[in-house]
Structure formats: structure tokens, C-alpha cells
């Protein structure tokens, strides 16, 4: 009994010793690779500082100068021979991860925008159809115009019908004109519109639906609830390579307690993903009342715009 217990315990000792050795080995390998990665990525300047410190340590009475020299030679050799390749590998891996994340994020936002574009508000659609029905009897030419405007609006809004080039400011202005013409027919004198966008900015890149979302917001939350109605101004300007598009209304202004709708949140998110910190959506309450929504983003006119068509 005693003997076997002894054997057992010595076996257990041997096993735990083996485990310990394996663990030490694993740790050594891990530390070695960490050291190697560090060495591959560290700047030469910092490496030299480490060497100088080691040399200074070597000169102290502890007398580790040989070891210090050995370390310096080893790290110099490694850095020169294998550092560049390893560094490139690590950077590639990192970039790959980042690119994956970014393209994923971009796809999610694109999908969300597509869903948003497909949402023609039923209230708008039915009211416009009712209006066309009435105008057919009382004013057929006006009925035909509103009908055409509705077609233009739907063509630009439904993603599966969207033509190429929808991502330019000019196309979005055209579509907004169609939408605003319909709203003017419905609201009558309660809605005044002015659009001031210089010709040369029409070909500038502008994320699809952005302008439309700002205009629909201004009408829905600013002007429709106001008994007297009001006006909406759309302006574009370029300053030092930044395109700024303003949508200004003199409606009821901000309700500080109403959450910003899906539309505004999407515009903001989309600008962030397409342009990072180089684009922004700014909302302001002018002293004169109402609301001003501005989008600022890098100005990118299409230099082939005139030549192509």
C-alpha cells in the first residue's frame, strides 16, 4: 500500500513537473513571439534608446556587459533580417480586420438607406392621388402636371427604379422640385419655395436621398403644423473645397422633446461612414425662427459631367 502510494505520488510529482516544463515552454514561446512582434514594429529610434540603456546597465558594477552586447547583436540581427517582413504581415492583418469592419458597417447602412428609400409615406401618396382625382375634373392640365411630378418623385425614391447618377446634387434638386411642386399644389399659398443652387454645383457628389430627407423634414415638422404655413429655402455654396447645402424653413421650429426621426439619424450615420469627420449634419434654430439644416461635405464635382451627355 505504502509503496504504491509512494509510486503514485512520485508519478504525480513527475506529471506535475512535466506540466510545469510544458507551461514554461509555452510561456517562453509566447514571450518570444511577443518580443519578436515588438522588435518588428518598434521604431529604430526607440530600439537604439533601449540599447543605450542596456549598455549603461552593463557598465555598472553588476557587469552584465557581455549579456547586454549579446542582446544588442541578437536584436539588431533579427530586426534587420526578419523585422520588415513580420511588420508588414502584422500591418496587413490589422488593415484586413479594419477593412472588414468598415465594409460591414457600410453594407448595413446601405441596406438601411435602401429600406428608407422604399418608404414612400402612404399618407403622402394617398393624398396626392386624391388631389389628382379632384384636378382631373376641375383642372385637367394641372392634374397632368401633378401626375408627372408624382411619377418623377416615385422614380427617384423607389430604389429599384433609381437611375444612375442619383448621387449628384443636381438629380436630387430635380427630384425635390417634383416633390415640392406636389406639396405646393396641396398646400397652396401656405408653401413658398426658393431654390438657389449654382449650375456648376449640380454635378457634385451628394449622398442619395439626403436632400429629400431634409426637405421632407422641414415640411412635415416645420411647415405643415403651422397654420399660416411658410417658406422653404434650399441653397448650396462651396467654400475652400467644402460643399454646404442648406435647407431653411420658417416653420414652427424645434420640439426639444421629439426624438430626431429615422431620417435625420440615417443621414448622420451615412455621412459618418462615407466621409468620417470630413462631413457633418448641423441643425440650427435661427433667431428669425424655424430651422436650418446644413450638410457639409468635401466638394467633388464631376469634371466629365458636361462631356458625357
Amino acid at each position, binding site marked *: 500500500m505504502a509503496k504504491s502510494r509512494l509510486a503514485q505520488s512520485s508519478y504525480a510529482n513527475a506529471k506535475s513537473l512535466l506540466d510545469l516544463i510544458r507551461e514554461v515552454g509555452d510561456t517562453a514561446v509566447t514571450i518570444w513571439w511577443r518580443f519578436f512582434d515588438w522588435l518588428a514594429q518598434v521604431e529604430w529610434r526607440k530600439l537604439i534608446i533601449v540599447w543605450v540603456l542596456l549598455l549603461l546597465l552593463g557598465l555598472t558594477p553588476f557587469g552584465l556587459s557581455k549579456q547586454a552586447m549579446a542582446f544588442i547583436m541578437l536584436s539588431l540581427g533579427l530586426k534587420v533580417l526578419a523585422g520588415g517582413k513580420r511588420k508588414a504581415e502584422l500591418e496587413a492583418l490589422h488593415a484586413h480586420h479594419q477593412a472588414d469592419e468598415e465594409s460591414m458597417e457600410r453594407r448595413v447602412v446601405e441596406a438601411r438607406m435602401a429600406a428608407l428609400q422604399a418608404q414612400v409615406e*402612404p399618407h403622402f401618396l394617398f*393624398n396626392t392621388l386624391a*388631389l389628382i382625382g379632384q384636378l382631373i375634373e376641375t383642372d385637367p392640365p394641372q392634374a397632368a402636371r401633378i401626375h408627372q411630378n408624382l411619377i418623377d418623385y416615385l422614380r427617384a425614391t423607389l430604389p429599384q427604379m433609381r437611375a444612375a447618377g442619383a448621387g449628384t446634387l443636381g438629380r436630387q434638386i430635380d427630384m425635390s422640385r417634383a416633390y415640392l411642386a406636389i406639396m405646393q399644389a396641396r398646400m397652396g399659398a401656405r408653401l413658398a419655395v426658393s431654390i438657389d443652387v449654382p449650375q456648376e454645383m449640380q454635378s457634385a457628389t451628394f449622398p442619395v436621398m439626403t436632400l429629400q430627407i431634409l426637405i421632407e423634414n422641414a415640411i412635415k415638422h416645420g411647415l405643415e*403644423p403651422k397654420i399660416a404655413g411658410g417658406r422653404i429655402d434650399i441653397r448650396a455654396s462651396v467654400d475652400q473645397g467644402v460643399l454646404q447645402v442648406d435647407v431653411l424653413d420658417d416653420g414652427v421650429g424645434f420640439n426639444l*422633446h421629439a426624438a430626431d426621426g429615422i431620417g435625420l*439619424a440615417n443621414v*448622420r450615420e451615412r455621412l459618418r461612414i462615407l466621409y468620417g469627420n470630413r462631413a457633418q449634419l448641423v441643425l440650427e434654430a*435661427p433667431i428669425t425662427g424655424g430651422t436650418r439644416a446644413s450638410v457639409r461635405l468635401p466638394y467633388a464635382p464631376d469634371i466629365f459631367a458636361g462631356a458625357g451627355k
Partner: protein
Amino acid sequence: MNSPVNSAASNQRVTALIADDEAPMRAQLRARLQESWPALDIVAEAENGVQAVELASLHNPAIVFLDIRMPGMSGIEAARLLFNRCHLVFVTAYDQYAIEAFEQGALDYLLKPVGGERLRTTCSRLQARVGQQPQDITRQLGALLAQHGAQPKREYLRWIQALVGQNLRMISTREILFFQADEKYTRVRTAQGEVLIRKTLKELADQLDPDEFWRIHRSTLVRVDAIDSVGRDLRGRQMVRVKGVEEALEVSRGNTHLFQQM
């Protein structure tokens, strides 16, 4: 009861009021009514809910046609002031919530474009009822109002106003990473940068949605969605890291329970 509604003979003049903010829609309803009920006398047209109530008081019509979506005062709100004086008919182009409530049959409604069989049915129902006292529809209107853009019980602040240069900028709370008290001011930190506002942290804490912003420290409110990680620093203090920002925010001892589950 000083209402002029009395048990009328069928040849008595029946009056009506039309309320819709869109002129073509008023014209349409008027034209269709003249076809379906030539004897109906449309005494006035209103362009919004407020005007509808005023004109109804002035003309005392037997019937009021009310568009649901109107500026100033919605058709449903106007109905609450009018229902015991006249018979009401709601008109709408599209309104899924409202129609659900109407389908139960207690309220009359028309869909735009109005006309056809539906309008004739409504007219004959009104003709039968016009001499009687309008029924009490308080309960139905209450239900309708609750579905139709009625205010939630408690409204939280969703926008912060900050003076940037000459302009009053509106910052959505969804853009804000955290608020931090800074003597007389409060720092508002967004991904883009920071601005100072005069509102105190206490006022903000009272007005903001407590599920959207957590008070982690006497001088810090952080947006829950913006929290990246929670850890401890070398002095053992619990620190919150916020996405896209270098500085870490301290959690005071009293508030560490917020992160116990994490």
C-alpha cells in the same frame, strides 16, 4: 339645451361645415356632397381645426366634416370640442390607426377621394340621424386621440441647444457622448468636438431619459450607448471608456452598482 338641433321635418334645411387644410379637397367634398345630397346646405369651410371650432360656434351646423390631419388643431382634437353640438364625420386619405378605431362602427368616416357608394351610405345615415341628439362619443375620441400622436406620459429632452458663434445649434442627444460639469457651465462632448452650455448637470439629469444617459459621477452624465468599456485604473477607481474619445470618465463610489452586471 340651446342647440338649434330639434326634431326636424324632412323638408327642413340641414346645414353643414367642411374642414380641410387643402383647398382642392374641400372643393371635392363640396362637389360630391352636392351630387349625393343636393338639399344639404354647406354654410362654411374651415382651413384648420381652430377655425372649424370657431365657425361651428358661429353657424351651428348640424353636420361637420373634419379632416383628421390639420395644422394647429387636428380633426380629432376639434371633435372633442364639437361632438355634443353636431354630428361629426371624419375624412382622411390614409390613416391606419384611425381607421382601426372607426371600423368598430361608432364613428362616421369617409376616405379620400370621397364619393360613390360609401358617401351615399353616409349621407343616408346622417339624414336619418340629423334630428336627434348626437351620440356621446367621448370614449371613442379618447381612444382615437391616444393612438393618434397623443403625447406620451413623460417627455424627455431629445435636443440640446448650444450657442456656437452667432448661431443656436441643435444637437441631438443621440450625437452626445457625455456631459460633464465644468464650474458654471456644462461641457457637451460629441464625436465632432465639444461645446459649452449653461444648463446645469442637475437640470439635464432631470430632463434627459434616464435610460439614455446614466449619471456615473456627481459631475458626469454618459450616454449608455456610447460606453465602450468599463475598467479600473491604477488607483483602483472604476473608469468608463467612451467610444472614440481618449479621456476616461470616473465612476464615483456611489454609482458603481450601475456596472455590477457587466
